[in-house]
């Protein structure tokens, strides 16, 4: 004598609160119970209970972990595919199942669902479509049929204001990655056995590591639809199937597994220890004779003011000074206001912010107006010749007019106005950095473009000669 009985579930469900409970928390005639049994049976038959992790959704089936004798996790509403992606990628030998309802999957979690499907994550998604929000009392769901009355569509769902029923299987079928997509139903015996085979296949695809499987199951919710269990089953078989036709949309489970190209692993230590220059940079040394000096380089994005600051900071590193470089720019990559502050010191630096400037370089009028008042007494301002001086610098500030843009154009290298400015800083010589270090820092920054290094060195030297004369 054989015995047909439930396998893959706990013998008792003590987590439900009743120590001797053997019944589910579902209403009479609920589709969840039928699908739970199909999943549990497939788990037991495939012998994968010990390596299976089921993501319980937010919805009536949130307590799936009362029943399935497998690993269970609950994710945030709609985020099962995202959480499952993490588990599937870190524990590659596990079978991952996302059990989700239509509120969870098709409403709040639709993005996560489509992205995970598009990436072809190794998860089996069991999607329970009952055309309503069951747990919260029967509100309109994305899958609610046109004209259907729910708590939040009391006059029937009007597609013109509430949208049309969402066909999730068809949406996912637009994507290249999924391996298996099928829509089934548990309305009657014939359909239940098709659903049984579909669930089994989705889980087998996971066991074999073949990729993303999606099974939509049309399930009755008699309570929320205010129908008797048998009426609701008939509603699923007739009205719902007219909107959501059953059938297999895709089955590539017999095709060989596609292998991703493996990445070369680079450790964080290795990644961050890549040198910035071809030559070695030694750690800074404390030198109390070297006072802290703050600098700002400002202009519009694309003029190379951030790079100019980097050259100064680089030269400070070569000279074994402590230094910080702190950029500030708008959301646009080119054209907006851009500036950076550089602090160079003989001892450790407390703050990278430069509010009281020893040196200020302005490449345009806006930058000059904005920052010139921050220059402290005894400081130096380098301004491009093209900038009108409509604002007077503070007293005791040295003003240097540099024809940077003009000279750069003259040297047939209009983008290297910042290099001319660097030469001006080196010539006026009020920074404690050595000229060789500035030049070394300039060339070192072009180590991947040797031609540029030579060209900028050339501009630097020619500009120096012109500025001295």
């Amino acid at each position: 004598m054989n015995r047909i009985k439930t396998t893959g579930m706990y013998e008792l469900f003590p987590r439900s609160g009743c120590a001797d409970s053997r019944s589910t928390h579902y209403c009479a005639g609920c589709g969840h119970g039928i699908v739970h049994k199909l999943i549990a049976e497939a788990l037991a038959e495939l012998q994968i209970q010990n390596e299976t992790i089921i993501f319980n959704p937010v919805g009536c089936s949130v307590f799936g972990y009362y029943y399935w004798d497998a690993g269970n996790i609950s994710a945030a509403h709609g985020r099962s595919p995202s959480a499952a992606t993490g588990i599937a990628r870190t524990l590659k030998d596990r079978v991952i199942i996302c059990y989700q309802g239509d509120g969870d999957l098709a409403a709040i979690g639709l993005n996560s669902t489509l992205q995970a499907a598009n990436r072809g994550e190794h998860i089996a998604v069991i999607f329970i479509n009952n055309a309503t929000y069951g747990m919260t009392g029967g509100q309109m769901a994305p899958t609610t049929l046109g004209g259907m009355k729910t708590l939040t569509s009391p006059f029937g769902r009007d597609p013109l204001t509430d949208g049309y029923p969402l066909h999730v299987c068809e949406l996912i079928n637009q994507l290249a990655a999924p391996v298996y997509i099928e829509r089934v139903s548990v309305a009657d015996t014939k359909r239940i056995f098709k659903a049984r085979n579909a669930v089994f296949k989705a889980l087998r695809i996971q066991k074999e590591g073949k990729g993303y499987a999606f099974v939509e199951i049309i399930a009755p919710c008699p309570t929320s639809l205010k129908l008797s269990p048998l009426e609701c089953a008939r509603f699923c078989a007739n009205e719902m199937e007219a909107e959501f036709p059953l059938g297999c949309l895709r089955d590539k489970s017999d095709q060989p597994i596609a292998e991703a190209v493996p990445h070369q692993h680079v450790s964080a230590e290795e990644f961050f220890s890549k040198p910035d220059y071809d030559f070695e940079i030694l750690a800074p040394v404390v030198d109390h004779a070297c006072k802290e000096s703050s600098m700002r380089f400002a202009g519009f994005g694309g003029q190379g003011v951030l790079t100019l600051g980097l050259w100064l900071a680089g030269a400070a590193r070569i000279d074994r000074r402590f230094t910080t470089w702190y950029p500030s720019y708008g959301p646009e990559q080119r054209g907006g206001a851009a500036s950076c502050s550089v602090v160079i010191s003989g001892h450790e630096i407390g703050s990278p912010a430069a509010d009281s400037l020893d040196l200020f370089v302005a490449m345009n009028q806006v930058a000059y107006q904005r920052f010139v008042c921050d220059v402290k007494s005894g400081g130096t301002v380098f301004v491009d010749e093209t900038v009108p001086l409509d604002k007077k610098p503070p007293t005791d500030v040295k003003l240097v007019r540099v024809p940077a843009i003009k000279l750069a154009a003259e040297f047939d290298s209009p983008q290297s106005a910042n290099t001319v400015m660097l030469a001006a800083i080196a010539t006026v010589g009020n920074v404690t950095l050595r000229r060789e270090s500035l030049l070394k820092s300039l060339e070192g920054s072009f180590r991947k473009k040797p031609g540029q290094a030579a060209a900028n060195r050339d501009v630097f030297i020619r500009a120096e000669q012109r500025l001295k004369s």
Partner: protein
Amino acid sequence: MPANSDESLDSGKPRPLINPDECKGCERCVNACPVHCLKISETLNCRGIRPAEYVGQGCTGCGICFYNCPEPYAIKIDKPDKVSQPAAVEPR
């Protein structure tokens, strides 16, 4: 206790083993049974619901009521080894 829930007995014939206290009375099994050998009981179970019960004869052991039932432990089926099954219930 109804005779058909005594699981220890081997009657030698196919039969459904219904646990009346787990049944929620949705009638899906009664409706699905191809040989109409299930009915709704006259008596109430501990939940105050009229559960499904076996009429006492006619069961073929096909398992259809089991798969229609949303409850894990409300129905089990005893079936003799050599009874032909609907193709859908055959092992995969």
